[in-house]
């Protein structure tokens, strides 16, 4: 069953240099109980897509100017709907937990506020519920730490606090935006382990936004890969990683040095990430692509099924045959 459905989403930002289309016609679904990775480099529009779903696109600079987002049959772009669902049905975890927590309130009270505000819990009930949550997300000596302030927590523990707050009202969709990017590798492993465990326990849908191909590899069922505001490839994670049909995806895969296996010279993607203020005509990836021809300059490629691959695997490229044969 589809829980979240995004269709032709367009989000624009007014900047001093002109209007930037941060998300340009993105469409995807998230099934209930599914773990989906939203992958992309800086400027790809992955975080803005999440902001649009949460109804927190920064205003007045940004605005959703096209498309639709529906959550469980409800129109999230209709006034007031996203606000009503935020926290209860859809929750979010951000990259930087320190700036997301209020420095002057005790951690227990901040978690408990979710229950006081949304469930009308008493102070005592909220405190007990906060303690339960802190234990569930693996904060050691939780009963002692309830009265600590955010600055007394380490980065990994703060992220656990954020996850506890996000889970407070048992949301059905959790969006985690680069949840481990600011953390050390060993702590990253702890947090990913926690997120997968909680996802399985709660049966919620999880959208993991990241730039790191490796972090989501053992975790996500499906990937949505974005470039310059557009979805360029989507499919089951293993299918996309092993049979990349878009030159950008295969380029990313070749750019990551291996932690085992032969130490080959890397094959990077040429050129620089796109300048959203002056995107090329047709396919935005064209200036960096070895397969680009006239068609790519004239016609913007749309997502379509790849030759001889499962129907769920789609890429927005005019020349997927070349990519598939060259890489594999």
């Amino acid at each position, binding site marked *: 069953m589809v829980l979240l459905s995004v269709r032709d989403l367009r989000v624009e930002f007014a900047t001093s240099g002109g209007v930037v289309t941060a998300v340009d016609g993105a469409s995807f679904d998230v099934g209930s109980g599914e773990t989906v990775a939203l992958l992309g*480099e*800086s400027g790809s529009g992955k975080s803005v897509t999440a902001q649009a779903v949460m109804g927190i696109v920064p205003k007045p600079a940004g605005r959703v100017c096209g498309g639709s987002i529906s959550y469980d049959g409800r129109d999230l772009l209709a006034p007031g709907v996203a606000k009503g669902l935020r926290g209860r049905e859809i929750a979010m975890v951000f990259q930087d937990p320190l700036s997301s927590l209020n420095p002057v309130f005790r951690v227990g009270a901040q978690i408990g506020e979710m229950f006081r505000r949304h469930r009308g819990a008493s102070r005592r009930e909220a405190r007990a519920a906060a303690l339960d949550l802190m234990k569930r997300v693996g904060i*050691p000596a939780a009963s002692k730490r309830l009265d600590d302030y955010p600055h007394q927590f*380490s*980065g*990994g*523990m703060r992220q656990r606090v954020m996850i506890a707050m996000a889970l407070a009202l048992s949301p059905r969709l959790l969006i985690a935006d680069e949840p481990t990017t600011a953390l*050390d*590798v*060993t*702590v*990253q*492993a*702890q947090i*990913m*382990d926690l997120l997968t465990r909680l996802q399985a326990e709660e049966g919620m849908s999880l959208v993991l936004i990241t*730039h*790191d*191909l*490796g*972090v*989501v*590899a*053992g975790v996500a069922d499906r990937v949505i890969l974005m470039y310059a505001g557009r979805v360029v490839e989507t499919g089951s994670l*293993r299918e996309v*990683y*092993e049979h990349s049909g878009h030159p950008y995806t295969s*380029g*990313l*895969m*070749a*750019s*990551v*040095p*291996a*932690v*085992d296996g032969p*130490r080959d*010279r*890397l*094959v*990077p*993607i*040429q050129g*620089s*990430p796109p*300048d959203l203020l002056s995107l090329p005509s047709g396919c935005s990836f064209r200036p960096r692509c070895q397969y680009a021809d006239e068609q790519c300059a004239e016609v913007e490629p749309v997502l379509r099924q790849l030759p001889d691959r499962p129907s769920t695997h789609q890429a927005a490229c005019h020349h997927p045959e070349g990519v598939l044969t060259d890489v594999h």
Partner: protein
Amino acid sequence: MSTESPLLSVRDLQTSFPMRSPVLRRTVGQIQAVAGVSFDIPAGGTLGLVGESGSGKSTVARTIIGLEKARSGSIVFDGDELTSLPKASMRRVRRQLQMIFQDPYASLNPRATVEQIIAEAWQIHPDVVPRNQHRAEVRDLLERVGLNPDHAERYPHQFSGGQRQRIGIARALALRPKLVICDEAVSALDVSVQAQVLNLLDDLRCDLGLAYLFIAHDLSVVRHISDRVAVMYLGRIVETASQDELFTRPLHPYTQALLSAVPDPKPWDKPAREQIIIGGDVPSPADPPSGCGFRTRCWKAEETCAHDVPELTTRLELHPAACHFATELAGAAR
């Protein structure tokens, strides 16, 4: 191992920061950021220094280059003892010893053109490039790092993150150094650009015979670029080995956990590995555990670990590890 003396030789380096009481305005203790670190880098070699935040890896770099003062120990670079070198001679040595920083946005003067940024070093060292050749040399350097030489008059904000890092590299190369310290030099870059910069660093090493001290938290990047790798934890090196050896036969439990935590983009290609997830965080260097620094997170820790600091001792050839159980671990690794 060659008998030639290494380009850089660090012995028992200690660097500490005073801990000040905000109320009493006096020093109440010392934070031992680097607690006795030793390593060598041969000319043209690359040592990867890995560790998590608070491990002291950046402080090692800053101490070598003179941005922090060593509390004790010795740093011998190209025959000169840096810790006791007079300021005037330090200038001569620093020419050979350059650094590339993590943040290409913060480390370039926004009000200077690329040419001014690169040529600035030649004003301090006029003998390197004569004044009338500045322009040509800047263009050469830009070309070498993969930038358009016609962009010498541009300002940093007109470049992308990856291009700015290339400017930082060109600046480091301007004085024709022998050793370049890369402190998380590719960490802030997007994957596709990071690969370009790694290849560039590789090429420069081959073409110019550069040696690198390559500091990073990303193990796959370190493995890619290094000949030898040293793993730091809480101010100490806990293990060091050749790149190949360290990644295939890690001896120290911390290295094992660190390697296990590296996300693998294609986990299905390999036999299922047992994932080691260690609990807790890196302890604060202000209040380190007694004995072995890693014991609070180690699944092998026993009583002796709380009393004795394990020495970095060699059980396998050229592969020292600082763990009380390293003999046993080395046996298992064989």
